[in-house]
């Protein structure tokens, strides 16, 4: 898919409004939000304020009811669903809170899975097998673990494998949805170091959602969702 990197920002949201089907009011209303190439952003807010919904909109899994969400110059809304799947597979890496991996695949196959649905990421990673191994080494998963089933790993290890998977093939954007919430403090520190470092090396932007404010300082930008989400304000205003 043709992308225009030079002029536009990586992600640009304008006049976004999103309402779940059957919901009476909008969950999200954001007039403007941008993310540049390689930028790391920390998105925070209380639970239920629409963080996960915003991530789905950014990743093109959901589409806006009004306004535009442009990613790499493409308006998600304008694309067909298969084009959206394609764009997401090619340019976005995801890390969830937990259960990121397919339990029945080996560690290595889980990382390589990201290249299976995207030719671009296969090409970008050069030799996928070696790249996956290098990334796993980088996040501290050693060769003895590669053949193990993902379900046999500890939660901390699983999150690091998920990070390796999100980064294989150097996607333009990594979306992380509270990836550290299942980790204890020591693991969280090392995971954050790894994630930020590997993102920087891959040149990927990082949109990181958490309600753990202690992590905020490590990012280029901090975004308070409650302050930019006008829907919440409207909700509170209505009796």
């Amino acid at each position, binding site marked *: 898919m043709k992308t225009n990197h030079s002029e536009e920002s990586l992600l640009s949201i304008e006049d976004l409004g999103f309402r779940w089907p059957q919901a009476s009011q909008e969950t999200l209303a954001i007039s403007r939000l941008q993310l540049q190439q390689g930028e790391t952003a920390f998105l925070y807010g209380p639970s239920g304020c629409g963080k996960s919904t915003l991530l789905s909109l950014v990743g093109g*899994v959901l589409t806006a009811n009004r306004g535009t969400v442009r990613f790499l110059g493409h308006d998600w809304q304008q694309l067909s669903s*298969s084009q959206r799947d394609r764009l997401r597979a090619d340019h976005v890496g995801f890390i*969830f809170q937990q259960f990121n991996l*397919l339990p029945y695949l080996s560690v290595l196959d889980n990382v390589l*899975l*990201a290249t299976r*649905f995207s030719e671009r990421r296969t090409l970008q990673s050069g030799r996928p097998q070696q790249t996956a191994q290098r990334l796993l080494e980088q996040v501290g998963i050693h060769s003895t673990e590669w053949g193990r089933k993902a379900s046999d790993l500890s939660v901390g290890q699983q999150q690091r494998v998920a990070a390796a998977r999100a980064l294989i093939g150097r996607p333009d954007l990594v979306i992380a949805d509270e990836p550290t919430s299942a980790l204890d403090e020591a693991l969280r520190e090392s995971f954050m170091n790894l994630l930020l470092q590997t993102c920087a090396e891959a040149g990927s932007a990082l949109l990181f959602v958490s309600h753990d404010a202690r992590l905020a300082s490590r990012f280029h930008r901090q975004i308070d969702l409650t302050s930019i989400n006008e829907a919440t304000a409207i909700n509170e205003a209505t009796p």
Partner: protein
Amino acid sequence: MKTLLGLAVQSAWNRRFVLSLVALSIALSTFLLLGIERIRADVRENFSHSVSGTDLIVGARTGSVQLLLYSVFRIGNATNNIRWSSVQTIGQHKAVAWMVPISLGDSHRGYSVVGTSTAYFEHFRYGDRQALNFERGKPFDSVFDAVLGAEVAEQLGYALGDRLVLSHGDGQLSANDHADKPFTVAGILRRTGTPVDRSVHISLEGMEAIHLDWVAGMPMKGMAVSADQVYRHDLTPKKVTAVLIGLKNRASVFSVQRSIAEFESEPLMAILPGVALDELWDVVGIGERALLAMSVSVSLVSLVGLVAVITTALEQRRRELAILRALGAGPRQILCLLVLEGTLITLSGWIIGVFLCALTLAAFGDWSSAHLGVALHLRAPTMNEWILSGCVVTSGLIASCIPGWRAYRLSLVDGLTPRI
């Protein structure tokens, strides 16, 4: 597609216990469908192979299917016999080339005894107009000679020169044995795969001899005739059960049939074996269709099981589907994944079913040919079996669309965050 297939296999393998139960139920229904079809085809083949080259079968007036069953397949009993004089009259008909009289009713250790003439070994044909051949020995020429079918000789371990005692009727009562007049094995026929293999053939004279001192199915007290004395009696048969007739020209078959039906001295009938066989299939067809309907129902039940198991598992797999969605799998690929899974399970069930079928045939083929007279063959699937197999797999594929469609909906609704 290759990725999806790999994922479907690995994911299914991860849940192999439950899924193997489903595959097993599909295997059983495949086994039923194919097994019933195989038995049906083999029974038909056996029956139509059993008689060939015989233009007409003559017997006392009865149902044509009944006459065919007892005269050729030794199933059931004749209600009436034909007088020998009638047989001779029919034999003089100018269109008749040969005839083989058959006299039934006695048995030897469960195998039926056929009283006949040496014309039997000359004119009787089976399969594709194959003549009977002798494995050892020769046709009977003395009164107490017997010629055994291959199965009888093999199962009972008889060799040439061995003596055997025939029983009156089905041999249930030992008092009904013809123990005073033992027969000697004069010949053993080569295997034919027809009821001939399970018959003991004796001459009509022999048949007459063992019943000389019998009246109304019972030995007459004080009137016993010893084996040596029989030659002093007239051993010309008085009655036979049926006559197989070959014509000089097949075109005259209907006129001969009509003349036999109009026979004056006693009520007779003549049947065309092929026509009677068709009538038999009409009757049997009802049972066959009922069996087919049953096995189709069993297949449907197993497919419902397939849908239920995959759909139930789907609830626990919403996370898995969300991961695939995040990695770029479209809802259509998710649908494809589920359909692949269901189809793979159906396919493996089918393969197990085919193996079960082959195994059963290999294990019970000999038994069935010895005890039921139906030779079941281990051979490549017939067209019908391919069609049935195709139906099983296709309906598995169609059934898999149900969980597939549900997964499609779920993946659209859930996106990346399944609400479990």
